[in-house]
Every structure is written in structure tokens, then in C-alpha cells.
């Protein structure tokens, strides 16, 4: 027995690999042909191999539970998700355009607020924003760029069209898993890398390093760059260590750093104090500096904001960048693109209703059973209502929340998210929903990963792809069919 692609049917959903039962899309053809040549045993062997590799490489993520933190092996499906290079080229440009506009917006918001004065963006949304930091007003980070590292979530609907679902501008995670997924796939399906032209992704750490180095306040040959982690109990610790290692920079915790009276940041080394130029911080704004934000934070560094405002250290992403990482602000990105760049958006937003607006709120309240309601400020898929999968009672709860805190909620249609063949127990293929998180870097230059992290909802019919809630992942291939 082996895989027969005629038995696989994605039904009403758009499938990433298959156009109709038995017919693979062009960039996926050598993969599907190869898989159907493998027997069941062989497929199972490759799956086991992937599992062993993950355990041996210690690719884990941390789940917080009531019994304490547990390290779980990274859930991974060996069948890659494939996009043609031609299509990717457009998305690449769209993602660049989007981050440029977002950074213009953040810089504007902390300076003259022209977009508000010109009536494009409502001022009260800014005033009510949980992520607007008055401490950041008037600061000018290098190149006017606040979000140097961005993870933008893309989804496809039932026609295969790509939309932006959200922009993660605070401390987006997942890029290490993107890189590890590729190294696992290279071990498990090496044959395909010989024949297909799959765009490499391995240059990300070097690009990240260049992006960070460009931010250094001291124009010296080897600026001191560090990755600031909240520590081993953070769910993304694996990634923090991975990136520090790949870039060859120090991985530090708050206690390794200090801000001296000269408002400069130093790290404690065996030879004494040493100046730090750039901090890739993986700590939320509120924990960065107990002098400025959360007083009880032991993760941060007292005085860090002082040093940053004085221009003596670069923080990436800049504090306050999260002001654009808000699902209400998201709804205005198409207007921002036109306002700042004078361009048409290349990738569209998902249709979004703002509960803040009375008319739109009324529509949302009338259609709670078909919409997805999301809090404006949460990440990780928490606190959401998925209308079609919800009970009357849950809908009632959300109606009350929306009426009480309209600014805090938005609604979107329940998307018929695209699917991809995924191995389930018994070695069969079933369609599973997925999304895609490419990573974009901006400093003096701008760069988009070739592909990104594909996250899969491992349960049948589920739309939740977050690894903290049972999601898995796949390698993402951008295949250049024209070069063959």
C-alpha cells in the first residue's frame, strides 16, 4: 500500500498541493509523485526519523500548565507546504510594502501625528491604545524604523487568495522553528532537494545580524550585539538561544546587564563591564525597565529606557512599536499604505469590522454566530470567539464584552482557511487548515524570508494553529518551477 492521491479530497477548501483529487499543482508535482512511490512502511519510517531528529536536536517549546512548565517536542508534519516562486515574488513585495508603511505610521504616531491631523486615522483609537507608550514620544530610532523584526500572518481563502491576518510587531517568534523545520526536512526527504529548486532560507540569521548591526549607535566595526531573553522558562527560550548561537552573539538575561550613570548599557563579563550597542530584546515592553514600566519586573534592566532615549543603545524592536500591533490599527493598514507610500496595497486585509464604530458594532452583534471576534491586543489565539463553533452562551458573553469595551474588539468573517495534506495516525493523508508567518527585517535595508513558518491545526476541522493550543507545523517550500 502507498499513498494514492485520488483518495485525498480537500472538498470545499483550497488545497495547497492538490487542485483536484489526483492532480497536483505544478510546484508540488515532484513531491506528490515521490510520496506515492514510497510504501506505507517507508512513509512511517520517515515520520519516525523526523520525530527522532526533533528529540535529538532538542527542538522544543515550553507549555505553561498548572503543574509547571513542560518542554514539549516540536509538533511537525513531514509533508511540506509548497508555493511557487512566481507567486512568492508578489507576496514578498507586498510584505515589504506593508512593513514600510507600518514603520512610517509608528514614527508618525510618536512625532507629529500627521495621519491623525489629516483625518485618515481616528485620534481616539490612539489615545485608548494599550500599546501606545508616552515614554516613546519624540524618540527617533535609526532610519525611523521602530519594528525591525516583523512576523506577518498570512492566510488563504477558498479561492487561494492570500490575505494578511495580523502583523506581529512586538516580539514575534517562530523563525527558529522555520529554520529547524527545514533542517529536519532535509534529513527526511533529501531526494527532493536534489531535483527541485527549493529556495534556501538559511541566510536569515546573517540577515538578522546585519539588521541589528546597522542599528548600532557607535559606528564601529564590531558593535556588541546581545539577545535579551526573559530566561529558560519562557516559551520561546529555545529560539532565543538558537538565534544567539546562529548569529554568534551573547545571549543575556536582565541580570547580566546594567545601565551606569553615563546612561550607557554594560554587560558583566569576566574582565569587568563591557559596553553593549544593540539589544535584540525578546522581552515585552512592560518588563523592559522597572524604572519606567512594571516596577516589579526582575526580567528587565533598570535604566534601559533612559539609555535608549539618550541614543546610547539600540533596542530591536523599539519600545512602543506594539502600537501598530493592535487589531484595530490593523484595519487601517491599507489606508496607511496609500497615505505614506502613495501605493495600492499589494496584499489585502481580511475584511474587518471595528466594534468601536456603532454601525459596524451593530452588524457584529447581529452576526456573532458566523463571525470570528478577536480582542484587539491579545496574541497566541487566546480570548477569541469562533462564531460557527460557539454556543449561544459564549456568544452572549461576547456580546456583553463587546458592549462594555467596544474599542477592545474586532470581528472578521470566518475564513474558509486553505488546507494541506497532512499525515494522520495510520499513515493516511487528511486535509488540515494552516496559515503562514513570513518574517520581515527592516533597518537600512529590507528583507523577507523565502516562505516562512507554516503552522497547521492538527485536529480535523480545527482553525487554531497556535502551538500553545495543539497546533503543529510544516516546512514551507518556495519552488522555482521556471528554473527547471
Amino acid at each position, binding site marked *: 500500500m502507498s499513498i494514492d492521491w485520488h483518495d485525498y479530497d480537500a472538498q470545499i477548501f483550497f488545497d495547497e498541493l492538490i487542485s483536484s483529487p489526483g492532480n497536483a499543482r505544478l510546484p508540488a508535482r515532484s513531491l506528490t509523485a515521490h510520496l506515492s512511490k514510497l510504501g506505507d512502511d517507508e512513509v512511517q519510517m520517515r515520520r519516525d526519523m523526523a520525530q527522532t531528529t526533533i528529540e535529538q536536536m532538542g527542538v522544543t517549546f515550553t507549555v505553561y500548565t498548572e503543574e509547571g512548565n513542560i518542554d514539549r517536542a516540536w509538533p511537525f508534519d513531514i509533508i511540506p507546504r509548497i508555493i511557487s516562486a512566481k507567486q512568492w515574488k508578489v507576496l514578498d513585495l507586498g510584505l515589504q510594502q506593508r512593513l514600510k508603511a507600518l514603520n512610517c505610521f509608528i514614527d508618525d504616531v510618536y512625532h507629529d501625528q500627521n495621519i491623525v491631523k489629516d483625518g485618515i486615522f481616528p485620534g481616539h483609537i490612539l489615545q485608548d491604545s494599550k500599546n501606545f507608550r508616552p515614554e516613546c514620544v519624540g524618540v527617533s530610532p535609526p532610519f525611523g524604523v521602530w519594528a525591525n523584526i516583523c512576523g506577518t500572518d498570512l492566510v488563504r481563502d477558498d479561492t487561494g487568495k492570500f490575505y494578511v491576518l495580523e502583523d506581529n510587531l512586538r516580539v514575534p517568534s517562530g523563525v527558529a522553528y522555520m529554520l529547524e523545520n527545514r533542517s529536519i526536512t532535509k534529513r527526511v526527504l533529501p531526494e527532493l532537494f536534489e531535483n527541485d529548486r527549493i529556495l534556501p532560507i538559511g541566510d536569515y540569521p546573517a540577515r538578522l545580524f546585519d539588521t541589528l548591526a546597522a542599528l548600532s549607535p557607535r559606528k564601529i566595526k564590531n558593535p556588541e550585539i546581545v539577545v535579551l531573553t526573559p530566561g529558560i522558562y519562557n516559551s520561546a*527560550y529555545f529560539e532565543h538561544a538558537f538565534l544567539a548561537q546562529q548569529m554568534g552573539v551573547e545571549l543575556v538575561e536582565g541580570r547580566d546587564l546594567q545601565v551606569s550613570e553615563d546612561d550607557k548599557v554594560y554587560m558583566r563579563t569576566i574582565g569587568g563591564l563591557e559596553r553593549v550597542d544593540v539589544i535584540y530584546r525578546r522581552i515585552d515592553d512592560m518588563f523592559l525597565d522597572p524604572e519606567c514600566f512594571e516596577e516589579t519586573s526582575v526580567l528587565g534592566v533598570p535604566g534601559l529606557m533612559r539609555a535608549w532615549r539618550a541614543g546610547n543603545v539600540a533596542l530591536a524592536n523599539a519600545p512602543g512599536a506594539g502600537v501598530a500591533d493592535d487589531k484595530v490599527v490593523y484595519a487601517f493598514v491599507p489606508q496607511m499604505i496609500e497615505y505614506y507610500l502613495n501605493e495600492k496595497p499589494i496584499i489585502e486585509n481580511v475584511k474587518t469590522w471595528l466594534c468601536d464604530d456603532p454601525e459596524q458594532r451593530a452588524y457584529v452583534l447581529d452576526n456573532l454566530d458566523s463571525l470570528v471576534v478577536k480582542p484587539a491586543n491579545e496574541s497566541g489565539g487566546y480570548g477569541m470567539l469562533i462564531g460557527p463553533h460557539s454556543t449561544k452562551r459564549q456568544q452572549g458573553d461576547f456580546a456583553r464584552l463587546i458592549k462594555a469595551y467596544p474599542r477592545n474588539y474586532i470581528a472578521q468573517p470566518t475564513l474558509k482557511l486553505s488546507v494541506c495534506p497532512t499525515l494522520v495516525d495510520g499513515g493516511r493523508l487528511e486535509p488540515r487548515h494552516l496559515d503562514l508567518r513570513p518574517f520581515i527585517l527592516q533597518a537600512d535595508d529590507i528583507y523577507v524570508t523565502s516562505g516562512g513558518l507554516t503552522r497547521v491545526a492538527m485536529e480535523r476541522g480545527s482553525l487554531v494553529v497556535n502551538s500553545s493550543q495543539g497546533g503543529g507545523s510544516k516546512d514551507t517550500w518556495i519552488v522555482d518551477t521556471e528554473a527547471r
Partner: protein
Amino acid sequence: MLLSTTAERMYWTARYLERIENTARLISVYHKLLLDLPGGVDITWYNLIVLNSAEDAFVSRYKNRDERNVLKFMLVDEQNGSTLSDVKILRENIRTSRDVLAPEVWECVNELYLSIRDNNQQGLLRRQRYEFIDGIIKSCQQINGLLSDTTSHDDVWQFIQLGRNLERADMTTRILDAGVSVLLQPGTELGVDLSQVVWGHVLRSLSANLSYRRTMQARISGPEVTQFLLEDEYFPRALRYCHDRIIEAVHKLPSQKPVLKKLQTVNSFRFEANSEQDLNDSFRDYINELQVRLLVLHQCFYDNWFAFEER
């Protein structure tokens, strides 16, 4: 310049790695020693607990001082101090130091952890013990090899040297102590001449038998074995050798003066013994003094490089 916390982690990484290997060696030798001793000689596995100064911890968890409990305590106990918990700490250390070590080191340590976690009953069964213990020793050497050949021999490496040699010196004193304590135990003076057997095993537990024969050109005897393990300049587990390597590493590190000064004040490893009888309680006192010296040295490293806040 190397972060203080990273330096400390490297130091402890090397210490734990050494400790895991040495514990495995100790069990392996004890296992063989007990097979060699004639019946009626009352030497128990519990000596291993005494040797590691772990009597209190053991008694609080186990009643019977038998082979199974001792091995359980030393190898797979969840409590601090067992090989399983040492490997866990080692793994956490490596995990938090992945920015300075080659990825293969992490993979190896992770494999060692998984194999001990998943096969921990093997070490308790006599039949499978050799394989289990031998596996641990081999893994440790593989990791040491990787560290040596894939880490730049810069400050990171010097701290690995400090940790390794300090732990190694400590273990050598403990193994010497083990030998003497077996021989001083009441009841062992009857019948067979045990000293040959015991000192032979002391050498083997440190993989020192070959070097001993080549260097000392002598039959195995207490005074000469102790002299070799204390004073030899070339054997990697002799105290003199470890001490010299520590000095060498310290010379290459920044702000080394206070540590060098301390090292110079304790520079002798001599115990006068002309016969087996001289290796008595005063020798055990001397061993104890050496262990205290190592503790002081550790504190000195700590104050000088790791505890930056108090500086």
C-alpha cells in the same frame, strides 16, 4: 569578553560532565572489585555513599543499605546528586549556553539525557549494568572530544579546563580515600593481602594502571600508587597534573592575579609514606585537607569571575 554567567555555566558544565563520568567509573570499578574480593570480607556498596559524603541524604530516603538502593541513589534518583539529576543539570547548562557551544554538543548531551532517562533500570540490574555504565562513560568522552575539537580555545575553553581539572582532582582524592578506607576497615586484615587488589582497582578506576606501570616501573603498592596519583606531572588524573592545568588556564584569563596567588600558596601534593601501614588515618586527614583546598580554590574562582555583583 565572555559574560560572567556564561563563564560560570561553562565551568559547571565541565564539572558536571566530569562528575557524571567519574561516578560511572566508580560504580564500574566497585562492581568489579566486589566480584574479586573473597567471601567473608565485609565491604558493602554503602562505602560509595560514605565516599561521596552523602550519608545524610541517603539515610533520609532509604532504609536498606543494599546494592540496589545504593545504585538507585547514585544513578537514577530524582533527588539531587544522582547521575540522572547531574545530567539534567548538565543539559540545562548546555541549553543555556548554546550561544557559545557547537550544536553537536547539545545534541550529544541531549542524547545522553534521553538514554539515561529511558533506560535507567538497566544500571540497577547486574546483568545489564556494564553496558549501561560503559555507555555513559563513552558519551562523556564523546562530549569532551566535541568540546575540545569544536570550541575555540579561548576564555570559554579556559573555564572548561578549570571546571574539569578541579572536579577531576576532587574525584581522585575521593577514590584514594575509598581505597584507604576499604583497607582500614576492621576485618580486612585477615587472610588475603587485599592491598594489591584494592590499589589495583584504584588505578583502574582512574584508567591509570598502564601509565602507573610505565611511569613507576614498580609493582602495585599503596605508597607508590598514592605518590603517583598525587605527584605525577604527566598523568591527567593526578593531582599535580590537574593543578598545573588549572594554573595554565588561569594564566590565560583576565584579572587572574588573586587566583594565581592562591594557587601558589597551595602548591605541594606530598604525603610521606614508606609502607602500607603509613597510609592510615593521618593519610585520610591529608586527603581531607586537599579536598578543603579545592573548595577554597572554587570559592576563589567564584569571587573573582562569577560573583560580579559583589565586586
